[in-house]
């Protein structure tokens, strides 16, 4: 915080209710730290979706396989950026690699991230796309042929045996990738869940809840992207794929909701010392973001919609609309979930006697605009990736006219 933004802090002094420790006035983990788990959650969720195809052989979902990988990559590339921007000393970020303190979950970030990026995602994408890259680099003109050639590492072998090997490699990597994706996002949950000083965060369920909501948001994102991109490319939406995706989304929402409900019931039942201030926290500060957005709009309504779609026979156009609306609501809900965890955990004092406020800057390195930029950037990257590594061949798109 620069000295001339002290006036914001002076204003905050006036909006404190009850008693907080003096150092707790300023919320240190800002909206950027809300964006980070949201983004890595999408990565993990998209990858799990990809694994449904390769490991669990859910054939219906094949059309979104490559899209999921590209989505995971686009968001993974953006993931470290909010962290970097938020550091008090961003120029020292390399120290996490040089002198990681292994008792800290945060020190794992560098290694888990690099492993997942290089050892899992890029490797899987390379094996998946290699044959096509070789073919494209032969058939296209400069510069695309050159780009594809480099990406294929100048590979030449497109024999059946080589492609078979590629597919086996993809399967193996995906199997390794599932726990890796769990680790990539689960450790974020552990970072919060292992802070015994903070009763809002400290919970055994935290990594699991994070992971489940990540899967929910990842599947929902791929649904949205699929429904937007296919018409843009003049193709036909595969309804079997979409219906299957929505089924899995529904199962994930049920599990996620059950876990969060369990956490809530457990807290109420045990009624530990912190229950009072946490109740005040929800009632005074998180009413809209938790009750309305996270639970009502983000979980109950989409779950209700999906139940309705499953039990009643709606026609195709209505189903598409409902899936789209549910997926968007879910995105809002999961973002709100991250907000409630990160910001909510800092709004109440560890003395359990007071609440502070979060005044989000608009400009500034930790402001709203930067956060929005980090949320939009992955889509731009995804656009570039789709140009270089098209997820669908012309034959797969189908005809837009026949429906």
């Amino acid at each position, binding site marked *: 915080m620069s000295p001339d933004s002290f006036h914001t802090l002076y204003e905050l002094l006036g909006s404190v209710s009850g008693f907080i420790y003096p150092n707790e006035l300023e919320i240190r983990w800002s909206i950027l730290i809300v964006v980070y788990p949201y983004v890595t959650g999408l990565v993990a969720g998209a990858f799990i979706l990809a694994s449904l195809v390769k490991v669990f052989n859910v054939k219906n979902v094949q059309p979104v396989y490559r899209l999921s990988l590209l989505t995971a990559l686009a968001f993974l590339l953006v993931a470290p950026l909010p962290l970097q921007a938020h550091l008090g000393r961003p120029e020292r970020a390399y120290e996490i690699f*040089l*002198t990681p*303190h292994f008792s800290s979950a945060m020190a794992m970030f560098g290694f888990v991230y690099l492993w997942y990026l290089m050892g899992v995602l890029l*490797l899987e994408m*390379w094996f998946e796309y290699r044959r096509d890259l070789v073919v494209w680099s032969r058939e296209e003109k400069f510069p695309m042929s050159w780009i594809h050639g480099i990406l294929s*590492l100048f*590979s030449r*072998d497109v024999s059946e045996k*080589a492609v078979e*090997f590629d597919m086996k490699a993809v399967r193996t990597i995906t199997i390794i990738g599932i726990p890796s994706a769990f680790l990539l996002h689960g450790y974020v949950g552990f970072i919060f869940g292992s802070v015994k000083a903070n009763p809002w965060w400290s919970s055994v369920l935290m990594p699991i809840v994070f992971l489940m909501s990540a899967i929910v948001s990842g599947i929902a994102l791929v649904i949205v992207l699929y429904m937007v991109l296919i018409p843009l490319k003049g193709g036909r939406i595969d309804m079997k794929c979409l219906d299957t995706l929505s089924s899995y989304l529904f199962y994930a929402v049920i599990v996620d909701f059950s876990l969060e409900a369990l956490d809530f019931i457990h807290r109420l039942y045990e009624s530990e010392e912190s229950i009072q201030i946490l109740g005040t926290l929800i009632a005074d500060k998180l009413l809209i973001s938790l009750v309305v957005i996270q639970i009502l709009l983000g979980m109950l309504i989409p779950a209700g919609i999906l139940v309705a779609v499953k039990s009643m026979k709606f026609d195709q156009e209505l189903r598409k609309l409902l899936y789209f609306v549910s997926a968007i609501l879910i995105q809002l809900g999961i973002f709100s979930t991250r907000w409630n965890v990160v910001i909510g955990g800092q709004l109440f004092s560890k003395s359990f006697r007071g609440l502070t406020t979060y005044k989000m800057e608009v400009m500034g390195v930790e402001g709203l605009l930067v956060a929005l930029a980090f949320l939009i950037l992955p889509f731009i990257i995804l656009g570039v990736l789709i140009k270089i590594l098209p997820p669908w061949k012309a034959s797969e798109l189908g005809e837009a006219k026949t429906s």
Partner: protein
Amino acid sequence: MFERIPEQIRRLAIVFVIVIGGTLVLRYLILPPSLIETRLHQESTIEREVAKQVKFAGAVVCGGCHEDIATVKGKGFHKSLSCESCHGPAAMHTEDPMTVKPFAPRQRKFCPLCHAYDASRPTGFPQINLTIHNPLKPCITCHNPHHPEPPTVPKECSACHAQIARTKAVSHHALVSCTTCHKTPRQHRVSPRRVKPTKPDTREFCGKCHREGSKRKDAPKIDLSTHGERYLCWECHYPHMPGAA
């Protein structure tokens, strides 16, 4: 042998060897220990911490030059008070006594930082009501800060025990003087912590007024042999506000 490895793996292996090998070379061969060894970092931190400037000299040092003040102060109520509590940090002064002088608080608003009445302050700590107590006069007019006895010995108990006096004044014991129950030696006004007044330690003491058959007409009566079993009266009844038990 290498021909048996699929072509893809061969190409990947080259990339991996370059990346991993490069990282290992960088980490273990190129980077200097000062960047990597945590022990070195911790040592240099300790060195930097220890080298920080000391601003407060410490109470023991002042008496070395200011012997006369130290002797006077050692006999009064402020004897355990560090000089720098009032005079501020004086380490610079010890190094250059003629040019750098510590701050000497002379205004009325300074002493009340400790001595203004505050309900949260422990009872028995000397406190005054700033508005009433010699208004506008600087405290040092009457109190030598190095030996801060009051200029006259307090006549009333309420001079120091104002909160208790206030409580008692609106209670049923308003007309019972403090010395009725507390035997107070004269010395208590001069050395309040060393010489303490007594507290009644028998049921019969309160019973003098409150037992059935006592001559005191306005005092409520109880049967001393049964009321309150064997406990001392003030274990339940607060004597300064006896209505509220």
